[in-house]
Protein backbone atom coordinates (compact mmCIF):
# COMPACT_ATOMS: atom_id res chain seq x y z
CA UNK A 1 0.00 0.00 0.00
CA UNK A 2 1.41 3.39 -0.92
CA UNK A 3 1.25 6.54 1.17
CA UNK A 4 0.84 10.18 0.33
CA UNK A 5 4.53 10.88 0.95
CA UNK A 6 5.44 9.22 -2.35
CA UNK A 7 3.78 12.00 -4.31
CA UNK A 8 5.37 15.32 -5.12
CA UNK A 9 2.27 17.45 -4.64
CA UNK A 10 0.22 17.31 -1.46
CA UNK A 11 -2.90 15.20 -1.72
CA UNK A 12 -6.34 16.33 -0.69
CA UNK A 13 -7.75 14.56 2.34
CA UNK A 14 -10.01 12.45 0.13
CA UNK A 15 -6.97 11.52 -1.98
CA UNK A 16 -4.97 10.56 1.08
CA UNK A 17 -7.83 8.39 2.42
CA UNK A 18 -8.20 6.72 -0.96
CA UNK A 19 -4.45 5.99 -1.11
CA UNK A 20 -4.29 4.58 2.42
CA UNK A 21 -7.58 2.68 2.62
CA UNK A 22 -9.07 2.43 -0.87
CA UNK A 23 -12.22 4.18 0.39
CA UNK A 24 -13.56 6.84 -1.99
CA UNK A 25 -15.36 9.33 0.26
CA UNK A 26 -16.47 11.52 -2.63
CA UNK A 27 -18.92 8.84 -3.71
CA UNK A 28 -21.14 9.82 -0.76
CA UNK A 29 -24.19 11.85 -1.83
CA UNK A 30 -25.63 12.31 1.66
CA UNK A 31 -28.64 10.01 1.47
CA UNK A 32 -28.29 9.38 5.21
CA UNK A 33 -28.99 5.65 5.17
CA UNK A 34 -25.82 4.98 7.20
CA UNK A 35 -26.92 7.31 9.99
CA UNK A 36 -30.46 5.91 9.91
CA UNK A 37 -29.25 2.33 10.38
CA UNK A 38 -26.34 3.02 12.74
CA UNK A 39 -27.11 1.56 16.19
CA UNK A 40 -25.02 4.18 17.98
CA UNK A 41 -25.72 7.28 15.85
CA UNK A 42 -27.90 8.75 18.61
CA UNK A 43 -24.92 8.73 20.98
CA UNK A 44 -22.46 10.18 18.45
CA UNK A 45 -21.38 13.82 18.21
CA UNK A 46 -21.28 13.48 14.40
CA UNK A 47 -23.34 10.66 12.82
CA UNK A 48 -21.68 8.67 9.99
CA UNK A 49 -23.19 10.68 7.10
CA UNK A 50 -21.95 13.90 8.70
CA UNK A 51 -18.50 12.37 9.16
CA UNK A 52 -18.49 11.70 5.41
CA UNK A 53 -19.56 15.28 4.60
CA UNK A 54 -16.97 16.81 6.94
CA UNK A 55 -14.20 14.77 5.33
CA UNK A 56 -15.38 15.76 1.86
CA UNK A 57 -14.95 19.47 2.64
CA UNK A 58 -11.17 18.95 2.95
CA UNK A 59 -11.22 21.53 5.75
CA UNK A 60 -8.45 20.95 8.35
CA UNK A 61 -10.75 22.23 11.13
CA UNK A 62 -13.32 19.57 10.28
CA UNK A 63 -10.65 16.87 10.26
CA UNK A 64 -9.44 18.10 13.65
CA UNK A 65 -12.99 17.91 15.06
CA UNK A 66 -13.34 14.35 13.82
CA UNK A 67 -10.00 13.22 15.23
CA UNK A 68 -11.13 14.61 18.60
CA UNK A 69 -14.67 13.22 18.27
CA UNK A 70 -16.42 10.45 20.17
CA UNK A 71 -18.00 9.19 16.93
CA UNK A 72 -14.91 7.35 15.76
CA UNK A 73 -14.69 5.47 19.09
CA UNK A 74 -18.39 4.81 19.52
CA UNK A 75 -18.58 3.03 16.16
CA UNK A 76 -19.06 -0.66 17.04
CA UNK A 77 -17.93 -1.95 13.61
CA UNK A 78 -21.30 -3.64 13.10
CA UNK A 79 -21.02 -3.04 9.31
CA UNK A 80 -24.66 -1.94 9.00
CA UNK A 81 -23.69 1.36 7.26
CA UNK A 82 -21.70 -0.23 4.43
CA UNK A 83 -24.38 -2.89 4.02
CA UNK A 84 -27.07 -0.29 3.38
CA UNK A 85 -24.94 2.31 1.56
CA UNK A 86 -26.17 2.60 -2.04
CA UNK A 87 -22.59 3.45 -3.07
CA UNK A 88 -21.10 0.64 -0.93
CA UNK A 89 -18.69 3.02 0.79
CA UNK A 90 -16.68 1.12 3.40
CA UNK A 91 -17.33 3.41 6.38
CA UNK A 92 -16.14 0.84 9.01
CA UNK A 93 -12.70 0.72 7.36
CA UNK A 94 -12.70 4.52 7.32
CA UNK A 95 -13.54 4.54 11.04
CA UNK A 96 -10.58 2.20 11.77
CA UNK A 97 -8.38 4.57 9.77
CA UNK A 98 -9.63 7.62 11.69
CA UNK A 99 -9.07 5.92 15.05
CA UNK A 100 -5.49 5.07 14.17
CA UNK A 101 -4.95 8.60 12.82
CA UNK A 102 -6.41 10.06 16.02
CA UNK A 103 -4.03 8.04 18.21
CA UNK A 104 -1.01 8.93 16.07
CA UNK A 105 -1.94 12.63 16.25
CA UNK A 106 -2.53 12.30 20.04
CA UNK A 107 -5.97 13.85 19.64
CA UNK A 108 -8.16 11.15 21.19
CA UNK A 109 -11.26 12.37 23.01
CA UNK A 110 -10.79 12.12 26.80
CA UNK A 111 -14.25 10.56 27.14
CA UNK A 112 -13.12 7.70 24.88
CA UNK A 113 -10.37 6.74 27.31
CA UNK A 114 -12.32 3.76 28.69
CA UNK A 115 -12.94 2.34 25.22
CA UNK A 116 -9.30 2.80 24.21
CA UNK A 117 -8.07 1.34 27.51
CA UNK A 118 -10.19 -1.73 26.95
CA UNK A 119 -8.69 -2.25 23.47
CA UNK A 120 -5.15 -1.73 24.80
CA UNK A 121 -5.68 -4.15 27.71
CA UNK A 122 -7.05 -6.66 25.20
CA UNK A 123 -3.98 -6.40 22.96
CA UNK A 124 -1.62 -6.56 25.94
CA UNK A 125 -3.16 -9.87 26.94
CA UNK A 126 -2.53 -11.28 23.45
CA UNK A 127 1.01 -9.88 23.44
CA UNK A 128 1.88 -11.60 26.75
CA UNK A 129 0.05 -14.93 26.44
CA UNK A 130 -0.89 -15.32 22.77
CA UNK A 131 -4.55 -15.45 23.72
CA UNK A 132 -7.12 -13.32 25.44
CA UNK A 133 -7.10 -14.01 29.17
CA UNK A 134 -10.42 -12.63 30.35
CA UNK A 135 -9.52 -12.24 34.03
CA UNK A 136 -6.24 -10.57 33.12
CA UNK A 137 -8.02 -8.27 30.68
CA UNK A 138 -10.50 -7.11 33.32
CA UNK A 139 -7.84 -6.55 35.98
CA UNK A 140 -5.58 -4.70 33.50
CA UNK A 141 -8.57 -2.60 32.34
CA UNK A 142 -9.49 -1.72 35.93
CA UNK A 143 -5.93 -0.65 36.65
CA UNK A 144 -5.94 1.58 33.58
CA UNK A 145 -9.32 3.19 34.19
CA UNK A 146 -9.67 3.06 37.96
CA UNK A 147 -13.12 1.47 37.56
CA UNK A 148 -12.33 -0.96 40.35
CA UNK A 149 -15.90 -1.67 41.43
CA UNK A 150 -17.37 -2.23 37.97
CA UNK A 151 -19.01 -5.65 37.51
CA UNK A 152 -17.70 -7.02 40.82
CA UNK A 153 -21.21 -8.37 41.42
CA UNK A 154 -21.25 -10.59 38.36
CA UNK A 155 -17.80 -12.15 38.86
CA UNK A 156 -18.68 -14.70 41.61
CA UNK A 157 -21.61 -16.03 39.57
CA UNK A 158 -19.36 -16.37 36.51
CA UNK A 159 -16.85 -18.27 38.62
CA UNK A 160 -19.55 -20.60 39.90
CA UNK A 161 -20.68 -21.27 36.33
CA UNK A 162 -17.13 -22.10 35.27
CA UNK A 163 -16.94 -19.06 32.99
CA UNK A 164 -13.92 -17.39 34.57
CA UNK A 165 -10.61 -19.19 34.69
CA UNK A 166 -8.12 -18.23 37.39
CA UNK A 167 -5.24 -19.43 35.19
CA UNK A 168 -4.37 -17.95 31.79
CA UNK A 169 -3.89 -20.16 28.74
CA UNK A 170 -0.36 -19.46 27.56
CA UNK A 171 0.52 -20.77 24.12
CA UNK A 172 3.88 -22.38 23.35
CA UNK A 173 4.55 -19.82 20.64
CA UNK A 174 3.90 -16.81 22.87
CA UNK A 175 7.37 -15.42 22.06
CA UNK A 176 6.48 -15.62 18.39
CA UNK A 177 3.37 -13.55 19.09
CA UNK A 178 5.46 -10.99 20.96
CA UNK A 179 7.79 -10.93 17.93
CA UNK A 180 4.81 -10.14 15.67
CA UNK A 181 3.90 -7.19 17.89
CA UNK A 182 7.54 -6.00 17.82
CA UNK A 183 7.90 -6.26 14.04
CA UNK A 184 4.74 -4.23 13.52
CA UNK A 185 5.93 -1.63 16.01
CA UNK A 186 9.29 -1.35 14.20
CA UNK A 187 7.65 -1.22 10.75
CA UNK A 188 5.54 1.70 11.86
CA UNK A 189 8.55 3.55 13.23
CA UNK A 190 10.01 3.45 9.73
CA UNK A 191 6.84 5.06 8.46
CA UNK A 192 5.35 2.04 6.70
CA UNK A 193 1.59 1.97 7.02
Amino acid sequence: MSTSQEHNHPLSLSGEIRMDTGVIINKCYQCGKCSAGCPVATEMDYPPSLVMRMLQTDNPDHLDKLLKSMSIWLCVSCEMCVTRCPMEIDIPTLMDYMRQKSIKAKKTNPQASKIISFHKSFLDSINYTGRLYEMGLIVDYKMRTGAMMQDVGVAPKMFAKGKLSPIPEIIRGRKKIAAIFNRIKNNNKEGIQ
Partner: protein
Amino acid sequence: MKVGFYPGCSMKGGAREYQESVSALAKVFDIELVEIPDWNCCGATAAHNLSKELSLSLPARIMALAEKEGIVDIVVPCAACYNRLSITRHELAEDKSLSAKVSSIIDIKYEGSTNILNIIQFIDKYITDKLEEKVVKPFNYNTACYYGCLLVRPHSILKFDRVEDPQSMDVLVKKAGGTAIDWAFKTECCGAGMSVSRTDTVARLSGNIMKDAADRAAEVVVVACPMCHSNLDMRRPEINKFLNEKIDIPVLYISQVLGLAVGLDAKTLGLNRHMTEVNLPQKPVKEDVVPEAAKKIVNSQKLEA
Protein backbone atom coordinates in the same frame (compact mmCIF):
# COMPACT_ATOMS: atom_id res chain seq x y z
CA MET B 1 -14.18 -37.41 9.28
CA LYS B 2 -11.64 -34.75 10.36
CA VAL B 3 -12.33 -31.02 10.31
CA GLY B 4 -10.02 -28.23 11.50
CA PHE B 5 -11.27 -26.40 14.56
CA TYR B 6 -10.52 -22.88 15.77
CA PRO B 7 -12.29 -22.36 19.12
CA GLY B 8 -11.05 -18.84 19.81
CA CYS B 9 -10.44 -17.38 23.27
CA SER B 10 -13.99 -16.93 24.51
CA MET B 11 -14.80 -20.62 24.02
CA LYS B 12 -12.00 -21.39 26.49
CA GLY B 13 -13.49 -19.01 29.05
CA GLY B 14 -16.80 -17.19 29.16
CA ALA B 15 -18.37 -19.28 26.39
CA ARG B 16 -17.22 -22.75 27.52
CA GLU B 17 -20.69 -24.13 26.94
CA TYR B 18 -20.44 -23.20 23.26
CA GLN B 19 -17.36 -25.39 22.81
CA GLU B 20 -18.91 -28.14 24.93
CA SER B 21 -22.05 -28.19 22.81
CA VAL B 22 -20.25 -27.97 19.45
CA SER B 23 -17.94 -30.84 20.45
CA ALA B 24 -20.84 -32.96 21.72
CA LEU B 25 -22.86 -32.32 18.56
CA ALA B 26 -19.91 -33.19 16.30
CA LYS B 27 -19.45 -36.45 18.19
CA VAL B 28 -23.07 -37.48 17.54
CA PHE B 29 -22.41 -37.15 13.80
CA ASP B 30 -18.97 -38.87 13.92
CA ILE B 31 -17.01 -35.74 13.08
CA GLU B 32 -13.57 -35.33 14.61
CA LEU B 33 -12.71 -31.71 15.31
CA VAL B 34 -8.94 -31.16 15.12
CA GLU B 35 -7.89 -28.10 17.10
CA ILE B 36 -5.26 -26.01 15.30
CA PRO B 37 -2.07 -26.54 17.34
CA ASP B 38 -0.84 -23.56 19.34
CA TRP B 39 -3.46 -21.20 17.93
CA ASN B 40 -3.49 -17.55 19.00
CA CYS B 41 -6.20 -14.93 19.47
CA CYS B 42 -7.62 -13.45 16.24
CA GLY B 43 -7.20 -9.91 17.60
CA ALA B 44 -10.93 -9.19 17.52
CA THR B 45 -12.18 -5.59 17.54
CA ALA B 46 -9.18 -4.30 19.48
CA ALA B 47 -6.71 -5.21 16.74
CA HIS B 48 -8.61 -3.78 13.78
CA ASN B 49 -9.46 -0.63 15.70
CA LEU B 50 -5.85 0.07 16.64
CA SER B 51 -3.63 -1.55 13.99
CA LYS B 52 -4.41 -2.77 10.52
CA GLU B 53 -1.23 -4.86 10.31
CA LEU B 54 -1.99 -6.62 13.58
CA SER B 55 -5.59 -7.28 12.52
CA LEU B 56 -4.26 -9.17 9.47
CA SER B 57 -1.21 -10.83 11.05
CA LEU B 58 -2.93 -12.55 13.99
CA PRO B 59 -5.57 -14.34 11.87
CA ALA B 60 -2.96 -15.09 9.17
CA ARG B 61 -0.81 -16.96 11.72
CA ILE B 62 -3.80 -19.11 12.70
CA MET B 63 -4.52 -20.04 9.08
CA ALA B 64 -0.82 -20.61 8.30
CA LEU B 65 -0.58 -23.02 11.26
CA ALA B 66 -3.60 -24.91 9.92
CA GLU B 67 -2.01 -25.08 6.47
CA LYS B 68 1.11 -26.66 7.99
CA GLU B 69 -1.13 -29.40 9.43
CA GLY B 70 -2.74 -29.99 6.05
CA ILE B 71 -6.10 -28.71 7.29
CA VAL B 72 -8.44 -27.34 4.60
CA ASP B 73 -11.81 -26.73 6.29
CA ILE B 74 -11.59 -24.75 9.53
CA VAL B 75 -14.78 -24.43 11.54
CA VAL B 76 -14.85 -21.16 13.49
CA PRO B 77 -17.94 -21.15 15.75
CA CYS B 78 -17.36 -17.64 17.14
CA ALA B 79 -18.91 -15.19 14.67
CA ALA B 80 -16.35 -12.50 15.53
CA CYS B 81 -13.37 -14.81 14.89
CA TYR B 82 -15.08 -16.11 11.74
CA ASN B 83 -15.40 -12.53 10.54
CA ARG B 84 -11.75 -11.62 11.22
CA LEU B 85 -10.38 -14.80 9.62
CA SER B 86 -12.61 -14.40 6.57
CA ILE B 87 -11.70 -10.75 6.08
CA THR B 88 -7.98 -11.49 6.43
CA ARG B 89 -8.26 -14.35 3.96
CA HIS B 90 -10.06 -12.04 1.51
CA GLU B 91 -7.64 -9.09 1.86
CA LEU B 92 -4.54 -11.25 1.51
CA ALA B 93 -5.97 -13.00 -1.56
CA GLU B 94 -6.65 -9.61 -3.18
CA ASP B 95 -3.20 -8.16 -2.49
CA LYS B 96 -0.18 -10.42 -3.06
CA SER B 97 2.38 -7.91 -1.78
CA LEU B 98 0.39 -7.45 1.43
CA SER B 99 0.24 -11.23 1.76
CA ALA B 100 4.04 -11.48 1.41
CA LYS B 101 4.49 -8.72 3.98
CA VAL B 102 2.20 -10.46 6.47
CA SER B 103 4.05 -13.75 5.88
CA SER B 104 7.28 -12.02 6.88
CA ILE B 105 5.67 -10.44 9.96
CA ILE B 106 4.32 -13.78 11.23
CA ASP B 107 7.48 -15.60 10.11
CA ILE B 108 5.46 -18.47 8.59
CA LYS B 109 4.58 -18.83 4.93
CA TYR B 110 0.90 -18.01 4.44
CA GLU B 111 -0.60 -19.69 1.35
CA GLY B 112 -4.29 -18.90 1.67
CA SER B 113 -5.40 -22.48 1.06
CA THR B 114 -7.77 -22.86 4.01
CA ASN B 115 -11.53 -22.64 3.86
CA ILE B 116 -13.24 -20.78 6.73
CA LEU B 117 -16.64 -22.08 7.85
CA ASN B 118 -18.93 -20.45 10.40
CA ILE B 119 -20.97 -22.73 12.66
CA ILE B 120 -23.97 -22.80 10.33
CA GLN B 121 -21.88 -23.47 7.23
CA PHE B 122 -20.17 -26.27 9.14
CA ILE B 123 -23.51 -27.78 10.18
CA ASP B 124 -24.89 -27.44 6.65
CA LYS B 125 -21.83 -29.09 5.12
CA TYR B 126 -21.43 -31.98 7.57
CA ILE B 127 -24.64 -32.42 9.58
CA THR B 128 -27.86 -31.03 8.06
CA ASP B 129 -28.49 -33.97 5.69
CA LYS B 130 -28.44 -36.41 8.58
CA LEU B 131 -30.08 -34.10 11.13
CA GLU B 132 -33.76 -34.92 10.74
CA GLU B 133 -33.30 -38.67 11.04
CA LYS B 134 -31.44 -38.14 14.34
CA VAL B 135 -34.02 -35.85 15.95
CA VAL B 136 -35.55 -37.73 18.87
CA LYS B 137 -36.72 -34.81 21.02
CA PRO B 138 -38.11 -32.06 18.79
CA PHE B 139 -37.20 -28.59 20.00
CA ASN B 140 -40.83 -27.53 20.14
CA TYR B 141 -40.49 -23.86 21.08
CA ASN B 142 -41.14 -20.46 19.57
CA THR B 143 -37.61 -19.52 18.67
CA ALA B 144 -36.18 -16.12 17.73
CA CYS B 145 -33.05 -16.71 15.62
CA TYR B 146 -30.62 -13.87 16.27
CA TYR B 147 -27.81 -13.60 13.71
CA GLY B 148 -26.24 -10.34 14.82
CA CYS B 149 -23.68 -8.47 12.74
CA LEU B 150 -20.53 -10.42 12.14
CA LEU B 151 -22.06 -13.64 10.87
CA VAL B 152 -23.66 -11.96 7.86
CA ARG B 153 -21.79 -8.68 7.31
CA PRO B 154 -19.99 -7.50 5.22
CA HIS B 155 -21.89 -9.48 2.60
CA SER B 156 -19.44 -8.58 -0.21
CA ILE B 157 -16.75 -10.64 1.56
CA LEU B 158 -18.63 -13.27 3.58
CA LYS B 159 -21.28 -13.99 0.92
CA PHE B 160 -23.28 -15.86 3.54
CA ASP B 161 -27.08 -15.91 3.71
CA ARG B 162 -29.45 -12.98 3.14
CA VAL B 163 -28.10 -9.83 4.65
CA GLU B 164 -31.27 -8.21 6.09
CA ASP B 165 -33.44 -11.28 6.70
CA PRO B 166 -31.16 -14.31 6.97
CA GLN B 167 -32.80 -17.76 7.02
CA SER B 168 -30.11 -20.39 7.55
CA MET B 169 -30.56 -20.67 11.34
CA ASP B 170 -34.36 -20.55 10.99
CA VAL B 171 -34.16 -23.55 8.65
CA LEU B 172 -32.05 -25.48 11.19
CA VAL B 173 -34.45 -24.68 14.03
CA LYS B 174 -37.37 -25.93 11.90
CA LYS B 175 -35.48 -29.12 11.08
CA ALA B 176 -34.95 -29.58 14.82
CA GLY B 177 -38.72 -29.46 15.27
CA GLY B 178 -39.03 -25.84 16.41
CA THR B 179 -40.92 -22.79 15.20
CA ALA B 180 -38.72 -19.97 13.95
CA ILE B 181 -40.66 -16.77 14.60
CA ASP B 182 -40.75 -13.75 12.32
CA TRP B 183 -39.21 -10.77 14.09
CA ALA B 184 -37.46 -7.49 13.40
CA PHE B 185 -34.12 -7.66 15.20
CA LYS B 186 -32.39 -10.58 13.49
CA THR B 187 -29.38 -8.57 12.39
CA GLU B 188 -29.44 -5.55 14.70
CA CYS B 189 -26.26 -4.98 16.70
CA CYS B 190 -26.15 -6.12 20.38
CA GLY B 191 -23.40 -3.63 21.28
CA ALA B 192 -20.58 -6.08 20.65
CA GLY B 193 -17.27 -5.36 22.34
CA MET B 194 -18.64 -2.41 24.32
CA SER B 195 -19.88 -4.73 27.08
CA VAL B 196 -17.33 -3.49 29.60
CA SER B 197 -16.36 -0.04 28.34
CA ARG B 198 -19.92 1.20 27.47
CA THR B 199 -22.29 -1.05 29.39
CA ASP B 200 -25.18 1.45 29.00
CA THR B 201 -24.93 1.24 25.21
CA VAL B 202 -25.06 -2.55 25.36
CA ALA B 203 -28.05 -2.47 27.72
CA ARG B 204 -29.96 -0.26 25.26
CA LEU B 205 -29.10 -2.20 22.08
CA SER B 206 -29.46 -5.66 23.59
CA GLY B 207 -32.55 -4.46 25.46
CA ASN B 208 -34.28 -3.52 22.22
CA ILE B 209 -33.47 -6.96 20.80
CA MET B 210 -34.84 -8.84 23.83
CA LYS B 211 -37.91 -6.59 23.96
CA ASP B 212 -38.89 -7.43 20.38
CA ALA B 213 -38.30 -11.14 21.00
CA ALA B 214 -40.52 -10.98 24.11
CA ASP B 215 -43.25 -8.94 22.37
CA ARG B 216 -43.46 -11.61 19.67
CA ALA B 217 -43.83 -14.38 22.25
CA ALA B 218 -40.44 -15.98 21.73
CA GLU B 219 -39.72 -18.67 24.30
CA VAL B 220 -36.05 -18.83 23.47
CA VAL B 221 -33.47 -16.76 21.57
CA VAL B 222 -30.84 -18.63 19.57
CA VAL B 223 -27.41 -17.24 18.72
CA ALA B 224 -24.22 -18.28 16.96
CA CYS B 225 -21.76 -15.90 18.62
CA PRO B 226 -20.24 -15.81 22.13
CA MET B 227 -20.22 -12.00 22.15
CA CYS B 228 -23.94 -11.80 21.29
CA HIS B 229 -24.56 -14.46 23.91
CA SER B 230 -22.73 -12.67 26.67
CA ASN B 231 -24.51 -9.40 25.90
CA LEU B 232 -28.01 -10.93 25.75
CA ASP B 233 -27.45 -13.39 28.61
CA MET B 234 -24.86 -12.06 31.05
CA ARG B 235 -26.02 -8.45 30.66
CA ARG B 236 -29.66 -9.39 31.39
CA PRO B 237 -29.79 -7.50 34.71
CA GLU B 238 -28.69 -4.31 32.90
CA ILE B 239 -31.14 -5.07 30.04
CA ASN B 240 -34.05 -5.52 32.43
CA LYS B 241 -33.11 -2.32 34.22
CA PHE B 242 -33.07 -0.44 30.91
CA LEU B 243 -36.43 -1.90 29.86
CA ASN B 244 -37.87 -1.56 33.35
CA GLU B 245 -39.39 -5.03 33.09
CA LYS B 246 -38.24 -8.56 33.75
CA ILE B 247 -37.53 -10.64 30.67
CA ASP B 248 -36.41 -14.17 31.52
CA ILE B 249 -36.22 -15.68 28.02
CA PRO B 250 -33.12 -17.89 27.88
CA VAL B 251 -30.47 -17.49 25.17
CA LEU B 252 -29.11 -20.72 23.66
CA TYR B 253 -26.42 -21.44 21.12
CA ILE B 254 -27.61 -23.10 17.91
CA SER B 255 -25.38 -26.07 18.77
CA GLN B 256 -27.28 -26.47 22.07
CA VAL B 257 -30.66 -26.38 20.31
CA LEU B 258 -29.61 -29.08 17.84
CA GLY B 259 -27.93 -31.02 20.65
CA LEU B 260 -31.15 -31.08 22.67
CA ALA B 261 -33.09 -32.17 19.58
CA VAL B 262 -30.80 -35.13 18.94
CA GLY B 263 -31.20 -36.23 22.55
CA LEU B 264 -28.10 -34.86 24.31
CA ASP B 265 -28.68 -33.90 27.92
CA ALA B 266 -28.63 -30.36 29.30
CA LYS B 267 -25.44 -30.80 31.30
CA THR B 268 -23.40 -32.19 28.38
CA LEU B 269 -24.50 -29.14 26.39
CA GLY B 270 -23.56 -26.77 29.22
CA LEU B 271 -27.05 -25.29 29.64
CA ASN B 272 -26.32 -24.92 33.36
CA ARG B 273 -23.59 -22.39 32.57
CA HIS B 274 -25.91 -19.68 31.26
CA MET B 275 -26.43 -16.69 33.54
CA THR B 276 -30.14 -16.46 32.62
CA GLU B 277 -31.55 -19.76 33.84
CA VAL B 278 -32.78 -22.15 31.16
CA ASN B 279 -36.18 -23.43 32.27
CA LEU B 280 -37.84 -24.62 29.09
CA PRO B 281 -41.35 -25.92 29.81
CA GLN B 282 -42.16 -29.51 28.87
CA LYS B 283 -44.56 -29.40 25.96
CA PRO B 284 -46.70 -31.90 24.13
CA VAL B 285 -45.17 -32.64 20.76
CA LYS B 286 -47.13 -31.48 17.74
CA GLU B 287 -48.04 -34.52 15.62
CA ASP B 288 -47.37 -32.89 12.23
CA VAL B 289 -43.77 -31.93 13.00
CA VAL B 290 -42.75 -35.15 14.70
CA PRO B 291 -40.19 -37.22 12.85
CA GLU B 292 -40.66 -40.99 12.73
CA ALA B 293 -38.07 -41.79 15.40
CA ALA B 294 -39.71 -39.47 17.92
CA LYS B 295 -43.26 -40.66 17.11
CA LYS B 296 -42.44 -44.10 18.42
CA ILE B 297 -41.32 -42.64 21.75
CA VAL B 298 -44.40 -40.40 22.03
CA ASN B 299 -46.74 -43.28 21.18
CA SER B 300 -45.19 -45.56 23.75
CA GLN B 301 -45.54 -42.81 26.37
CA LYS B 302 -49.21 -42.41 25.43
CA LEU B 303 -49.74 -46.13 25.87
CA GLU B 304 -48.22 -46.01 29.32
CA ALA B 305 -50.51 -43.13 30.24
